């Protein structure tokens, strides 16, 4: 067993509901969050086949506003926020000057001069400071940590639209992927974003914390006959891994660059400047030495975070995430390996607690939803 993490300091507005539902609560990034309500497998499968309801209120919100808000966001975010229309969101990174990750995030354009940045729970305070310092000197732009103003509920799965649509007048079919709208859901003022961290279609609903309980209850009622279940952080992790979505602090961190992580597509190469640009341009020209790949185990055993990857008897890389995924029913992993050996079909061995288990590189994502 691992050392016990520090005790949780924060509880979301839905904490009482999770406890009443019998959820197993665990500390996560300073929050006491539901790990699972029933079992991770059944929650994972519900999301793949029907829908799941997640409380992800631990995520942080930082807003950047002012006449020069776009220039400010362009400075700290690797992706090109200039390409965002109002009502559109994009995946991006807060890069270090070395081109590695401070965090990954979603950037929402709320108005021409107003952006919402959604960062990971572990990086709310530090991310806020990072952004505030990063945009200092850009001009007329201010960053505000608005995390306490939002609860965040995610409805994910092929039936998500059927669950949410009856509760709102907003035409959800007209809200495209990585687009958002504002309106009422179950009488609660919400920003309705067609985004998620599961590899499925779905919506993330930003609402005032005091209304979270009312919305949760309305969604649960609406979702019951669609096979929706509440789902916890356990299923969130296995779902995102199947979809090969990187986990900040684990697959991507201060030691791995945006390019090594295979995320060159979130770099606005045409932007004149942003934190990390020089290092990333240099690395793009020189080529990366290692790359994040998908591994599928070819023998009995499950690769886990931190396990060594071997080739020709010697260590060549490491696993950053791994499990046996409930939907594919395969042991898969994300791992950094030498760039020369990143092609699908390349064979490695993973050291599973002293036993070398064969594994081979497979294309990412492991799971892609049918359209």
């Amino acid at each position, binding site marked *: *067993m691992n050392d016990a993490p520090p005790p949780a300091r924060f509880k979301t507005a839905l904490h009482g509901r999770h406890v009443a539902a019998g959820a197993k609560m665990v500390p996560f990034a300073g929050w006491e969050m539901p*790990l*699972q309500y029933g*079992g*991770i*497998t059944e929650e*994972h499968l519900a999301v793949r086949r029907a829908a799941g309801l997640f409380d992800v209120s631990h995520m942080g919100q930082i807003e950047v506003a002012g006449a020069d808000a776009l220039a400010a966001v362009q400075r700290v975010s690797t992706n090109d926020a200039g390409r965002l229309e109002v009502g559109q969101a994009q995946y991006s990174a807060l890069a270090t000057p070395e081109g590695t990750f401070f965090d990954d995030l979603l950037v929402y354009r709320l108005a021409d001069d107003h952006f919402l940045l959604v960062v990971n729970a572990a990086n709310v305070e530090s991310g806020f400071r990072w952004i505030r310092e990063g945009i200092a000197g850009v001009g007329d732009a201010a960053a505000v940590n608005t995390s306490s103003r939002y609860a965040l509920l995610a409805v994910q799965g092929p039936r998500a639209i059927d669950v949410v649509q009856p509760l709102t007048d907003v035409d959800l079919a007209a809200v495209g992927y990585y687009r958002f709208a504002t309106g009422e859901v179950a009488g609660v003022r919400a920003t309705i974003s067609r985004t998620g961290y599961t590899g499925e279609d779905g919506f993330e609903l930003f609402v005032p914390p005091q209304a979270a309980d009312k919305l949760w209850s309305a969604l649960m009622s609406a979702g019951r006959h669609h096979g929706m279940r509440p789902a916890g952080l*356990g299923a969130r*992790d*296995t779902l995102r891994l199947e979809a090969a979505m990187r986990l900040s602090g684990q697959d991507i961190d201060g030691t791995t660059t945006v390019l090594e992580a295979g995320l060159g597509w979130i770099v606005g190469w045409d932007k004149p400047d942003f934190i990390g640009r020089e290092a990333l341009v240099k690395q793009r020209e020189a080529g990366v030495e290692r790359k994040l790949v998908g591994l599928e185990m070819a023998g*009995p*055993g*499950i690769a*886990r975070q931190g396990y060594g990857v071997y080739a020709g008897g010697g260590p060549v890389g490491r696993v950053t995430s791994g*499990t*046996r995924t*409930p939907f594919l029913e395969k*042991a898969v992993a994300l791992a950094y390996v030498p760039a020369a050996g990143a092609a699908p079909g390349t064979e490695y061995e993973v050291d599973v*607690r002293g036993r070398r288990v064969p594994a081979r590189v497979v294309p990412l994502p492991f799971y892609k939803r049918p359209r």
Partner: protein
Amino acid sequence: MYPSDRLYTKDHEWILIAGATARIGITHYAQDQLGDVVYVELPQVGQQFEQGAQFGSIESVKAVSDLYCPLAGRVTEVNTTLAAAPETVNADPHGTWMMAIELADPASASGLLDSAAYAELVK
């Protein structure tokens, strides 16, 4: 909850002794802590284990945990049905044995807990 026909370890294994042999599994508490079990790694028949030695491991979706041998002995049988149906550990932990051993010292059960003491431990 914890059958009185067997003994328990502080590491959450159970051992059901019948004469000179015994069957070994994990407790309800252990499976509940692990969550959905997806893989059980078992030893080979014929392997010898000291008391407290690791004989295998059990993996759930979210974690991996080592399995420790409650008493010294030699493996006479392993439960091969677990390869295809590891989830039976969750469904019926006290009815799902992992391996059978021939006890090195059938008279000794030192260091083990009875069901009441184990129930107290995990209360």
